[in-house]
């Protein structure tokens, strides 16, 4: 197992290099001159522009720029944005915000998604089951930004239950955006749990569990759920990785200064080092959580073994 994990982590290095190069190339290919745009209506003096270009290696060809970037990265230098702020500082400031938002979202998914899925699965074809099917279909078919604005209008403006935007209200400020961020996956988790539970309840080992004289709670809660939750847990693991790698739309709507917003702003101002730094971090998070899911999968299902 340890060897498997080590091998997977080693494999992550070429993936990270490849991904960062692609992102670097895409920022390079963006039209327009980021340095000239810095000045806005009042152009910067040519000497200043040239100095900035020199400082950020913008006159070098793409491979040279990338090589210089990776060289600095190897020494722990993530580069700076155009105002001279280190990218590592931006990340360490923004990441906790994104982490909190993602945690709130994943908790919504676990609590409500699992609960709805389990109840619907146990009471198949009941009113509650139909309710879950209809409401999850509805959620899946509404775009995130519509859901975000709707949430702001109803719960923020009309009912006044949550702040409309910003982070001035502690944990409460995270609830509404967290829910909006979670909504799509929550619906998916509910569906997945329900389907998996219904499928597993048809298995022969459920009949055996009943024949042992176990209570219905034990038949479902222990024997069936342990099997049904394998795909759900692995989905949740992968999803947490996704949630951590930026909620650009949700953070935008609710004006939350997380990594998603940071990367969006950086793309607009073509700050290559910031974009590449943060997106590469996203890629790393995603790789890490995928590995975690694979390890988790083996822990949950004894039939899965890695050599």
């Amino acid at each position, binding site marked *: 197992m340890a060897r498997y994990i080590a091998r997977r982590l080693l494999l992550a290095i070429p993936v990270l290099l490849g991904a960062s190069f692609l992102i670097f190339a895409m920022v390079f290919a963006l039209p327009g001159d980021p340095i000239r745009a810095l000045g806005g209506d009042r152009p910067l003096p040519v000497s200043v522009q040239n100095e900035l270009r020199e400082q950020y290696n913008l006159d070098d060809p793409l491979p040279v720029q990338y090589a210089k970037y990776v060289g600095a990265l190897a020494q722990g230098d993530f580069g700076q944005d155009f105002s001279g702020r280190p990218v590592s500082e931006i990340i360490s400031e923004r990441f906790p915000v994104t982490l909190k938002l993602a945690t709130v979202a994943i908790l919504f998914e676990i609590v409500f998604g699992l609960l709805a899925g389990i109840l619907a699965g146990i009471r198949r074809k009941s009113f509650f089951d139909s309710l879950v099917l209809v409401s999850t279909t509805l959620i899946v078919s509404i775009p995130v930004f519509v859901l975000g604005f709707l949430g702001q209008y109803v719960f923020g403006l009309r009912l006044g239950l949550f702040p409309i935007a910003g982070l001035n209200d502690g944990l409460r400020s995270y609830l509404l955006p967290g829910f909006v961020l979670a909504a799509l996956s929550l619906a998916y988790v509910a569906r997945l749990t329900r389907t998996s539970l219904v499928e597993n309840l048809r*298995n*022969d*080992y459920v*009949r*055996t*569990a*009943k*024949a*042992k*004289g*176990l*209570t219905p709670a*034990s038949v479902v809660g222990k*024997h069936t759920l*342990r*099997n049904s939750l*394998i795909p759900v847990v692995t989905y949740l693991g992968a999803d947490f990785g996704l949630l951590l790698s930026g909620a650009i739309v949700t953070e935008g709507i609710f004006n939350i200064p997380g990594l998603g917003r940071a990367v969006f702003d950086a793309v607009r101002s073509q700050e290559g080092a910031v974009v590449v730094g943060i997106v590469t971090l996203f890629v790393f998070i995603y790789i890490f959580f995928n590995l975690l899911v694979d390890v988790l999968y083996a822990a*949950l*299902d*004894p*039939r899965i073994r890695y050599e």
Partner: protein
Amino acid sequence: MTSVLTSPTGAAAGGAPLLEVDDLYVEFRTDYGVVHAVNGISYTLNAGETLAILGESGCGKSVSAQTIMGILDTPPGFVTGGEIRYKGRDLLKMGAKEQRDIRGEEISIVFQDALSSLNPVFSVGAQIGEMFRRHRGTSRGEAKKLAIELMDRVRIPAAKDRVGDYPHQFSGGMRQRVMIAMAIALDPAILIADEPTTALDVTVQAQIMDLLQELQDETGMGLILITHDLGVVGEIADRVAVMYAGRIVETGATDAVFSAPAMPYTEGLMASIARVDQKGQRLNPIVGSPPNLADLPTGCPFHPRCPRATDYCPTALPPLLEVVPGRRSACHYAEEVLNDH
């Protein structure tokens, strides 16, 4: 062999029989109509006795077993009539908790496919030990010890090392031994074996049947063996009940039924056995296929396939009547059939 000859509804010497199934009806209500899976079956089982329930796939034999265990899926399955008396008390009228306490403790079952019947994510030790934990409140550590003892008893080699292994790590025969260990864990009075060897290869089949018989000799439990394997029935069953289309069509001591059937369906089954002295000859299958349980033929359900059928057969359902003492047959011409042998 005295109990063998008691009539199916009569009591064995020493009181009421262990189990009495009395005029049991089970149906499945599906989107495509009502399937009459079990249509008024009655039989008894005494302690230490082996009763074989013999029949083709889909004749209702497994459904009747699941009904006795109380693990019928409702819906779609419904018990629509009859009683199942265990030690004189009707299981069907008991409360859910009381039924659960009997399940696994007094009456237990071994299923056909051990791989799918064992839970893939729990070790076999945990699954065997769960019997003690559920019914006796045994501690986890003690349950594990008892599980090892049971695995030894059903002769799983290196039980101590394998108690933590998972079902997929065992061979088919060993998995079925695990199932059996689980079923006999609490010394049940009745063991139902629902096609316990169908999924196994022939040599392993014999070992499993030997094991079941040995355990029965040790504990004196009543064994209901559900099978379509005539060879197995002939070897170990004291009595046999032949099922067709959800009904018992013939019962009696195994030897008597096998040597001289009193029902054309049983006759057909006997004739279909491949025998060494008939090498090179064609087998004699029963022509046609089992009836659709959602749309049974009128009269005797076997008449469309019966070589002895007359014009009378489609008009009246033959009741299961005594032909000679200890033997019953559901055929209008039972005595003639019997006398032909």
